[in-house]
């Protein structure tokens, strides 16, 4: 069992957990994730290891409540435990000094890009960050990102915070601004966002890394459920990734694959809502 040491609500649907996982904590690298299972009857889901404290033996997870499992997880309190946590999984992000990089986070994807941005900054890069969300509440980790970035631009679809619009608008300006000298882009967020960013940066010939949130069961290369097509060949997101060259990813296929269980997930979610008391009653 993996005890929740600290819980903090970042937005009405986004929660940060610090969880006791002493084996994983000292081994976490930027880009790694864990597979967790909340309860015995639960499913295994991948969550990015946002941070860790090797001395305290803790890891940090940030979760957006969107379906049954994530809602159940977000309803847990300090002192409660997760049934299972295994990690660190995936190939860590190769952190190198590119000179200047752009880090783009969309929604809860900002939680995934944060450890990478920090790693890039520690490696000596100038880090220019863009974080976006549908609305102001869904823009998270603004202060944390500010601490590891030369500049942070926020965008919201509805204009409730920062610039109104999507993340590709300021990114285009950054790429056009030759004085910044951006030589790599890291983009993590919803698949359509990563696709749009990759399409944009392709025109500039700037290498772009994306992190693919494919459907996984074991997370160790055993099931092949997370297979993605990259440069025309099959890769497993859990072991070959989760990061890939955004210019070579078949996003359309992955978007379709990630809808495989939409109906069943809705069913499970409805049932969950019917059997639990409304939280905000």
């Amino acid at each position, binding site marked *: 069992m993996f005890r929740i040491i600290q819980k903090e609500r970042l937005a009405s649907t986004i929660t940060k957990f610090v969880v006791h996982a002493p084996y994983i904590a000292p081994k976490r690298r930027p880009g790694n994730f864990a597979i967790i299972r909340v309860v015995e009857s639960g*499913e*295994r889901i991948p969550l990015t290891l946002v941070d860790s404290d090797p001395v305290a033996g803790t890891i940090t997870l940030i979760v957006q409540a969107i379906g049954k499992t994530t809602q159940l997880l977000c309803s847990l309190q300090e002192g409660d435990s997760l049934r299972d946590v*295994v990690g660190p999984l995936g190939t860590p992000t190769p952190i190198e000094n590119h000179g200047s990089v752009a880090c783009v986070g969309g929604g809860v994807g900002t939680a995934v890009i944060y450890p990478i941005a920090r790693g890039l900054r520690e490696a000596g890069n100038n880090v220019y960050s863009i974080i976006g969300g549908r609305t102001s509440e869904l823009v998270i980790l603004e202060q944390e990102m500010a601490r590891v970035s030369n500049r942070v631009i926020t965008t919201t679809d509805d204009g409730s915070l920062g610039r109104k619009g999507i993340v590709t608008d300021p990114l285009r300006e950054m790429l056009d601004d030759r004085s910044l000298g951006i030589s790599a882009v890291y983009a993590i967020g919803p698949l359509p966002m990563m696709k749009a960013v990759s399409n944009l940066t392709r025109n500039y010939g700037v290498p772009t890394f994306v992190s693919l949130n494919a459907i996984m*069961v*074991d997370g*160790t290369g*055993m099931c*092949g459920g997370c297979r993605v097509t990259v440069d025309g060949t099959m890769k497993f997101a859990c072991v070959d990734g989760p990061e890939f060259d955004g210019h070579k990813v078949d996003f359309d296929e992955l978007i*379709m694959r990630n809808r*495989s269980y939409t109906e069943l997930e809705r069913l499970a979610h409805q049932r969950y809502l019917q059997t639990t008391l409304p939280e905000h009653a």
Partner: protein
Amino acid sequence: MSAFNSLKPSERMKIPRQGSLEQNAGERKGNFLEVSFGFNEERAQIEAARCLECTNPVCTEGCPVGIDIRSFVQRILMKDYAGAVQTIRQANSLPAICGRVCPQEEQCEAVCTLGKKHEPVAIGKLERFVADYEMTHNLFSPPMVETKRDEKVAIVGSGPAGLTCAAELSKIGYKVTLFEALHAVGGVLRYGIPEFRLPRTILDLEAERIKAMGVEIITNFLVGRTATVDELMDEWGFSAVFLGTGAGTPHFLGIPGEGLTGVYSANEFLTRVNLMKAYQFPDYDTPIRLGKNVAVIGGGNTAMDAVRTARRLGAERAVLVYRRSRQEMPARLEEVHHAEEEGIEFLMLTNPLRIIGDEHHVVTSLECQRMELGEPDDSGRRKPIPVAGSEFSIAVDTVIEAIGQQPNPIIQSTTSGLKTGKRGVIITDDRQQTSRPGVFAGGDLSRGGATVILAMRDGKQAANSIHTYLQSVQLSTVDITDSMTG
């Protein structure tokens, strides 16, 4: 004493081989309960009486772990069931599992003397009978350990190889820690073999017994990532390591359409059902997407497990697509027979060409071509050759590929000094020693894809080799100390 005990060989030979009791096919294709109930005491008695008690029991030679089969069958006849299971346990620490999933027809029963003229003794079903007797009568007690030893040994992977190695080493007195990447122990016995062939209660019980023997079990620990083999040896204080991580990486055909929704590897399909209990969705959260028409590609035991599972999940048409003919199918005969009874269709000499989907990227059909058999290939089986112009499609909404798997590369790529061979298998000598001192390997990880019992054989052999190795290390340390003080 049984009435059969005084029979002459000629009389024994006249007794027909006993069939096991089974759940009928009509019922069982709708549930996940065990297909075979095995023998009751009466049938076990009759079957045991068929054994000719050969002076040279070749059956034992046919058993990969060398069970004294003649003795245990004799004990059944004497109704000494506790003694019978003890006899088996001297050679095999997982009898309830082997009695269910071993291919006895290729091993002990294949060489049984009675089988030359008649049907062989049903050794597997007898093994299962006494193992189940032990379970229902609560006869198991952890074996006595004569000498407690200080050395720690790490076992990586809790499948049949790892469980056996752990049990054997703890009997010798070592401190054993078993690391498992998933949340439950059993490896392929847990995620691969379905409940209707191996009930989970048996697996849970074996795990409890391993614990009762003093083995520490750590789940959710992926060796290679959570800690490397090097770290286990250099920092965690393990004197030796056994690697039994199996062959978990699934192969795909590489045909167009494998990215469509509704295409599964058998590994994913079976893991969702067996490990995650997707057949109890939504009581269990893991979903599975299964249509009414399911094609399973392959001809091995995994393909058979997948297609029979699909049937139980409600597939109206469950088709096994295999590119060779029935004779070349590697699946166990008993499983093929059970599958037929359950209404599985066999589409032999058929090779999939591509998977076709609709505008939502969901599978609608499987395009195939007919094959014919040519000359034998490297495997000794006749090679399938495409028949020109024979392309045809079958309407399916789910395609499951069960065409083999290979070892997961995580350990090989994170451990120094480990030699690997074709398709990523770890190379060992015949005592399961790898190229790295102190590191041993066995089961599918070194074989590439074999059986539960061969994995157990390797686990047992590795335990003996680890014991020899640790004693020699101790001796050489003593030598050095002597020469330093001398």
